[in-house]
């Protein structure tokens, strides 16, 4: 790459130093523009067209018809009264899933991080243990658990040896929902644990020592020192976790196929099925649904923005040049 030096130097002379930054950020932006932003724009256009053609130019413009189809409801609180009942069911399922999954996952990740932060034997090893599932692909994660949870699976065998009758873990709506939450926590918790652990390790030890000398109770020390100082990491974990939870798809799709009934059908799966898996690929309707998803994620983004603003403007962020 030394060979690149002379042309870069020439470029630098033309652009000047601050603007050379565009050269650095350019390739990344170009790729994103081509393979993310352009598709988003096409998708946006899809949302206002109908028909089964693939090329935007061949699709008849239908205005807000797709959106009104999605929002055609007797009562928004009762999916059964909606024209696209599955869309609304998937929205409610996703909301419920995201809240439950994130709350449980953050709590568990915190406990795990606290345990791993202690001076225990084999700390490095256990840190790895909790991180291992993060490396597995969603399909593999789902297959592993499907194999454990199926009616003839090992979990029921263990129960049977304890004298209990087999449970349809994935065919009972409540259990299936539970396992979707469980499996997604299983697969992602390790990542968040490490982020929290990094935060815990950054807390100076003398703070605790001083508090201890003052005779502060452990709970107080936890709530007054650990929690506040861990807050930036906790917020990152919460926001990232929430975004990921709303986008949940692959694991659940392979694990339950959205069932039983529609108990674990989430919003991305609804979009995927409408656009891909039905006999008639309704790209327009799928795109309209993804528009709704994008809007709700935008709300989450704004929340995140408010929170991370401080981070962006932190002194370290002011590079000179």
């Amino acid at each position: 790459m030394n060979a690149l030096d002379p042309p870069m130097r020439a470029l630098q002379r033309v652009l000047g130093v601050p603007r050379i930054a565009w050269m650095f950020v350019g390739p990344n932006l170009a790729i994103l523009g081509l393979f993310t932003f352009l598709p988003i724009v096409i998708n946006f256009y899809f949302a206002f067209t109908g028909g089964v053609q693939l090329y935007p130019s061949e699709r008849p413009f239908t205005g807000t018809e797709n959106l009104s189809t999605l929002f055609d409801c007797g009562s928004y609180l009762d999916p059964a009264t909606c024209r696209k009942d599955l869309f609304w069911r998937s929205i409610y399922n996703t909301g419920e899933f995201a809240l439950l999954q994130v709350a449980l996952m953050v709590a568990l990740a915190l406990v795990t991080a606290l345990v791993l932060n202690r001076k225990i034997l084999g700390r490095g090893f256990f840190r790895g243990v909790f991180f291992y599932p993060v490396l597995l692909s969603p399909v593999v994660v789902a297959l592993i658990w499907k194999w454990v949870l199926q009616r003839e699976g090992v979990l029921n065998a263990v129960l049977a040896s304890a004298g209990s009758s087999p449970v349809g873990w994935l065919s009972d709506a409540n259990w299936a929902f539970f396992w979707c939450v469980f499996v997604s926590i299983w697969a992602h918790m390790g990542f968040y644990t490490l982020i929290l652990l990094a935060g815990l390790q950054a807390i100076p030890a003398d703070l605790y020592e001083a508090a201890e000398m003052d005779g502060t109770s452990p709970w107080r020390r936890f709530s007054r020192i650990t929690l506040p100082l861990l807050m930036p990491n906790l917020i990152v974990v919460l926001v990232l976790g929430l975004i990921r939870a709303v986008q949940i798809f692959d694991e659940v799709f392979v694990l339950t196929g959205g069932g039983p009934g529609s108990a674990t059908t989430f919003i991305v799966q609804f979009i995927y099925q409408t656009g891909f898996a039905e006999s008639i690929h309704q790209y327009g309707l799928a795109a309209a649904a993804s528009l709704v998803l994008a809007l709700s994620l935008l709300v989450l983004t704004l929340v995140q923005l408010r929170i991370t603003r401080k981070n962006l403007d932190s002194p370290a962020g002011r590079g000179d040049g």
Partner: protein
Amino acid sequence: MSITCRRTSLPFVVLLSLFFGFATAGEIRVACYSDGNECEVTQDLAKRFEAQNPDVKVAVDKVPYKAILEQLPVQLAAGEGPDIARVTDLGGLSKYYLDITPYIKDPKYWEANFGQTLPWMRSSPSDKGIYGMMTQLTVTGPYVNKTLFEQANVPLPGAQATWDQWVDASRKVAKATQVPFAVAFDRSGHRFAGPAISMGSKYFDTKGDLVVDDGYKAMAKKLYDWNRDGTMPKEVWGGVGGATYRDAFEEFANGRVVMYLSGSWQIRRMDTQIGKNFDWIAVPNPCGPAACTGIPGGAAFVALKRTKNPKDVGRFLDYLASEPVYAEYMGRTENIPAHAGVAKKGVDYKVSPQAKAALTTFVGEVPKLSPVAYQIQGYKLNRAIFNPTAARLGQAIVGEMSLDDALKRISADIDEQVKAAGK
């Protein structure tokens, strides 16, 4: 990362050749998915074809079924994709098919031997084109665990027995042998259609539009009741969501179900995986008030419009359709021929006596199939009713909605899909 020409030149050439895949003239690509060994046998036959026609190269791409079902339509819509594909949504993709009539030696031969199934690939009844060849004919029908019947000392219901009689007998057997479930159906709107037609469903109204009629409702009610009262294992129809396919083979193979409605394609698996654990037999489709029918089905190799070598595509399909080659294909893949000539002569299956008996039973079912079964199977938008059947009845079975609501939803789903397709 400093670049010195000499050192990098070789990998660079390799890179270049990777970059621009070389398209050979006269090459045809076949996208194939496999339920057993179909693609391997196709590949074998393609090699032989290449030896006879050195100017043509046939590449068989073995892809996951998911790719055929979900990605292929997108590729075709974008004007991409293979020259030939093995597909199951025969009517749904018809607008992408190439009429190979000009490229085959003898269209009359095709009409004579594949006449029954050629319309399945056509877009409308007035369409007379030849678009491809069924790689096999499948027939739905029930399997029975005969050993359990013997243990329970319950006689097998006879040839004209009704569904109710079969279910009653299976319940008795299940009870006597402490098997948890009497009956299971694959979770599929296609499988459901056989019994529904037997119950009197016509699937179409007088105008030729898809309809949820009384016969369909009667069968839906039975399926619903059997799931609710524990005759059927709920996890099959209730276990997954949407229109996801789920078979009940494992339940049957484990001896947890007495009677299992599936189809002829399961024979190979029955043979290899159940082995000597128990005696399994295929039985004729039970009766309803209207008929005693299953439903035909199967996959086809279809020629695709986007091909640049239509002549070679025609030649290759012609080769596969020729009688000796087709007969060999059937024999090696253990499938039922869709070729009248081959069917008449009979295929020499090299399988166990049990599998042979089952194949004979299914072959015997073919002439008994109801015309309605052919009509719905050949209908371009049949998935518009098959998919909601599985999805909505599944929802009803798990208690998410009432059966009535589910039936209403099925009607609404059909309307929406048909309307979307018409745009």
